[in-house]
């Protein structure tokens, strides 16, 4: 019996078990390999054992953070989804994962975190609403800065600015990558036959957020939707391995449509109003006490109850 493994990952939304690509990759791999994980879905990365998400905590070997390291660790514990792959298929896995990381990932980073409209309307909003106070003021912007920095370093251009030029180049590579993946997948259920492997986990992890999270600037989404076999591939995995999440999604979608573009949520508005009134009253009372408009006299200790005298003085 393997020691209990705990996985910390970002919470899910929009019908996904998690909103983050790396977390999705690891969750999918764990399901494919049949690893018994205790999954903690959190929204505060500081609570994870390594400080970033996803993180795998094992009893004996400590904690690991990147998807590749987590998958290696799971394999060490005998949970291997690539057991049946031939040597050539293992080589292909390595190659296609590299393709994903070099060609698709930069565009995904751009579309979720750097593109102005997407970032402000969707990504930052989700993270700001879901991360606990006071991190929700710091983290989204910090992640945004880090992702832009990463794009700059990877492209080798320190003066890179988000804009049409960059978007065109990145999306061109990403669209080509998605087409290549679609061609490689063909009409098969998974990339290497009938049972899923780590490559399927990586592809799912990267494509599923694109499929499910609706973005205002959705060029990549449109292309993905036009590739039927990839779309079917992602939906298939969601239905087969994460049935509880895909059932929640329709209910949530209805309420989101009702809100439309409305920025205030009803319950929060009420709570905010009450809180602000209480705060104002408290401030006024405090000022009144401090400046002597209202005083409370306590008579020295007697057996009777002290009575409160209120004196009001007119101020000229």
């Amino acid at each position, binding site marked *: 019996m393997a020691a209990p493994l705990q996985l910390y990952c970002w919470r899910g939304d929009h019908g996904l078990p998690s909103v983050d690509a790396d977390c999705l990759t690891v969750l999918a791999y764990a399901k494919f390999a049949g690893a018994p994980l205790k999954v903690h879905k959190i929204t505060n990365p500081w609570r994870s054992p390594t400080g970033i998400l996803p993180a795998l905590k094992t009893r004996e070997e400590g904690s690991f953070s*990147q998807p590749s390291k987590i998958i290696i660790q799971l394999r060490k514990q005998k949970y291997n989804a690539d057991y049946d792959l031939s*040597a*050539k298929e*293992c*080589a*292909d896995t*390595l*190659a*296609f994962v*590299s*393709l994903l*990381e*070099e*060609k698709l990932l930069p565009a995904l980073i751009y579309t979720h975190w750097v593109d102005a409209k997407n970032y402000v309307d969707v990504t930052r909003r989700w993270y700001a609403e879901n991360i606990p106070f006071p991190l929700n003021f710091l983290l989204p912007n910090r992640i945004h800065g*880090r992702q832009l*920095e*990463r794009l700059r*370093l*990877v492209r*080798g*251009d320190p003066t890179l600015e988000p804009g049409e*030029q960059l978007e*065109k*180049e990145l999306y*061109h590579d990403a669209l*080509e990558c998605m087409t*290549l*993946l679609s*061609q*490689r997948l*063909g009409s098969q259920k998974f990339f290497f036959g009938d049972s899923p492997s780590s490559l399927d986990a990586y592809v799912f992890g990267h494509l599923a957020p694109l499929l499910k999270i609706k973005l205002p600037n959705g060029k990549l989404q449109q292309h993905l939707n036009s590739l039927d076999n990839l779309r079917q591939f992602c939906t298939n995995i969601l239905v087969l391995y994460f049935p509880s999440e895909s059932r929640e999604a329709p209910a949530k979608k209805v309420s989101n449509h009702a809100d439309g573009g409305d920025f205030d949520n009803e319950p929060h508005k009420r709570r905010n109003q009450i809180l602000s009134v209480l705060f104002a009253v408290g401030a006024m009372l405090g000022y009144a006490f401090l400046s002597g408009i209202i005083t409370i006299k306590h008579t020295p200790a007697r057996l009777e109850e002290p009575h409160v005298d209120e004196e009001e003085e007119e101020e000229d």
Partner: protein
Amino acid sequence: DSLLGEVLVVELNTAEPWPENATLYQPLREDQILLSDCASSLAVQAYLRMCGLPVRVCCRANAEYMSPSGKVPFIHVGNQVVSELGPIVQFTKAKGHSLSDGLDDVQRAEMKAYMELVNNMLLTAELYIQWCDDTTSSEITRPRYSSPYSWPLNHILAYQKQWEVRRKMNAIGWAGKTLEQVYEDVSQCCQALSQRLGTQPYFFNKQPTELDALVFGHLFTILTTRLTSDELSEKIKSYSNLLSFCRRIEQTYFEESIGKLPLGVIV
């Protein structure tokens, strides 16, 4: 380079044939060029030779700064300047020379994937070993990189480049790796390449493609460059089909200039 630039290149140059005076620029061969740049340059040279396109190799100390994207090598053809293997392949395709036309869709997908594997693992490992390993960096890389310049510019440029590469390693998650882990990654990459090559003469059928050029460029350079330890070239030598692959391409395409290849760049 930009997609718009590529479109313009296609429109302007489709009709023009390949000129005789095409030139490839790289840093100085004896003293300055680094492992990663040498590999990239050799890959481009191999590709052009495979296409049968003549090119003159020109060594310049400031090649990196002349390049439009900041990366070497770059080629100067007619009035166009194109850098890096990917755009160069596109450029020659626009002129009607292509090595991968005979591939079907699945094969083309695999070819691109394996090229990214080389870029993602081999090239990054080369950069890591050059700049992030303190021994190599101080004994080999920094002195070589700064050799054309005088004090204090040589120190400034070398440290600036080192800092930039280390930040990039940090951003892509390689900063936490030890040298042993990087060697292990190279080994895995070579194993994957060896598996894919099998007993075939080239990666796809009997004709070489840009993947063969890229793999040759990197493996040959690693095999013939001396670093602080031999471990990197030992990893490659353990795969005999990769060794014979390199030898085959060297004999087929570089026969007439074997003496001029950067053989045994002693550092």
